[in-house]
């Protein structure tokens, strides 16, 4: 009895951990599995019919408009990431390093886009675009502007956290050790804030890539990948969607792993 109890005690935490992992990974596993599903004989998307490489090997046969929607989403996500990361980083520096009138108000306002419901943000943006006379030009640029906006607050908050955690004694130590203002920034401040900036950029990309609500309201005739999936879902999701899903998953894992490998290799090189 006590042995059984001890066994449970020892394995309970492990078992619970595995359950939680399964909870998060089962859906992803389904996506990966379905990307190899041969659905040519049936439209029943919830059933695995037969293994095939076709979904992966013949993008030409992809559902109409899917490739375009993916390409559009990637372009918007890249641009929104670059612009939001650059602007957000600068804003974070200003908010942490400079005292100015309205600083605390600005710190509060940054949280608004994160806190307010997307549907509210999306519709008020639409109202803004229309009343500014861009009602007829909704499309790539309005999507981009909307994405930059909501990415910005995430970037600012992430970089700010990193920057305020930075001991400003370090910068003074650098100056004391003959580093000019510019050298201090590039040798000390920037490398120490960089992980925050990279994290913010990755977050921006994925926020932009999968945004649906705000995008849908401001897209005009354009169709992004999330909009495509939503539309296709009315008829039954084509298996190729799972290909994109799996590819995105593999790429993010690769980025994380790559980062780790580079870091370890650098450490090893230094230790050599």
């Amino acid at each position, binding site marked *: 009895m006590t042995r059984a109890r001890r066994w449970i005690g020892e394995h309970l935490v492990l078992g619970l951990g595995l359950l939680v992992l399964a909870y998060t990974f089962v859906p992803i596993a389904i996506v990966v599995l379905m990307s190899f599903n041969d659905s040519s004989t049936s439209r029943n998307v919830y059933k695995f019919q037969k293994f095939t490489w076709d979904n992966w090997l013949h993008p030409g046969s992809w559902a109409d408009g899917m490739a375009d929607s993916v390409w559009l989403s990637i372009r918007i996500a890249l641009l929104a990431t670059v612009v939001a990361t650059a602007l957000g980083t600068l804003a974070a520096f200003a908010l942490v390093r400079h005292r100015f009138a309205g600083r605390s108000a600005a710190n509060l306002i940054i949280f608004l886009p994160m806190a307010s419901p997307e549907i509210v943000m999306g519709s008020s943006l639409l109202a803004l675009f229309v009343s500014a006379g861009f009602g007829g030009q909704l499309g790539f640029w309005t999507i981009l502007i909307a994405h930059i906006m909501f990415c910005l607050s995430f970037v600012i908050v992430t970089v700010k956290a990193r920057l305020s955690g930075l*001991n400003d*004694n*370090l910068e*003074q*130590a*650098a*100056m*004391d*050790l*003959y*580093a*000019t203002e510019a*050298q201090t920034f590039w*040798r*000390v401040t920037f*490398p*120490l804030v960089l992980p925050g900036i990279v994290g913010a950029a990755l977050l921006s990309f994925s926020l932009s890539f999968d945004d649906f609500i705000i995008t849908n309201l401001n897209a005009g005739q354009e169709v992004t990948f999330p909009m495509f999936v939503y539309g296709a879902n009315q008829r039954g999701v084509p298996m190729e969607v799972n290909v994109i899903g799996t590819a995105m998953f593999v790429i993010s894992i690769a980025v994380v792993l790559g980062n780790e490998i580079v870091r370890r290799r650098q450490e090893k090189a*230094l*230790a050599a």
Partner: protein
Amino acid sequence: MSQVHEGAAAPSGAHARGADGSRDLRLTGLTKEYATFTAVKSLDLVVPQGEFFALLGPSGCGKTTTLRMVAGLDTPTSGTIHLGDTEITFEKPYRRPVNTVFQNYALFPHLNIAKNVAFGLERRGIKNTRQQVADMLELVELTSQAHKKPTQMSGGQQQRVALARALINKPEVLLLDEPLGALDLKLRRGMQLELKRIQTEVGLTFVHVTHDQEEAMTMADTIAVMNQGVIEQMGAPSELYENPRTTFVANFLGQSNLIAGEIEGRDGDHVKVRVQGAVASVPGDRAHSDSGKGWLGIRPEKVLIAEAGTPIDAPGDVITGGYVTDVSFVGVSTQYSVMMPWGQELTVFEQNTGARSMLPVGTKVDISWRPEFAFLLDASQDAKAGIEDD
């Protein structure tokens, strides 16, 4: 360790010698005011080249502020800072031949130890820092740790890295801001000796900030005692200890018995003071007041104690009528508290020579001291100034 002197070019910044060819650090009328608070008040200070100089004072007295102005990290409200004949008051920190060991080390967390140490040399465009870094790490005995990150090291090791990182630049002045504060007692004693050894070897000017009077006394050639933004007194450790000028110095550096007295005036090279009915004479150079009321000061270990009625081996007056209120045995010595007839408790330290057994509490005693060991201070000062409540 002679390698330390060779190699890198001297830091940037002019190297004009003082009138007498020296590179003394001179602070003149140095003042730092914050909105509502004056942290440093018109400080005048000369730190001779090559000296181990200690700035000693309680927490909050303005030590860090003073160092930061010398390093160029704070701008003085008024006053000047000179190195030799070069004025550096408003020079950028990276253009001063001055380096700092920060109170919390401030090591760069993203660089390994070797890179941290090489930082200053590299910023000055010096190539091939390898050998110098290796020599420096050897000096602080961290050769095997060169590739670790600062967070992987103990407090004592980090402290030595901070020292190496500053020292490698061979600054004309090295500023140390309570560098041993975070270490435990044993490590601190070890590092004190090591710092002193390194300073002697490299021969640079060290300005060492501390609030630990024992640390200042064991390490420094000269101590400046600082209190509330001003220097109270400056001199060799023994000089400050034996002949304090203010009640703050008398209490902050060791302990003192301060007895109220009435100064009768100068008599030749002595000053006469009436204390509780007796007249004591204090050597002129130890009397820092010569009229009105005064504090007669005597260090506890200079006071001789004996059971009432037994002879005391001292040429001065014997003061009778005291009794022991507290005894504590600390190995090398015994510390007595003695209640005097005028209601003041005096502290007496007696060496445990074994000549006599301990005097128990309640014993009636006489005390005495050699007049030349006493000092006389102006009575307008608080007799409790500088007593640390710990």
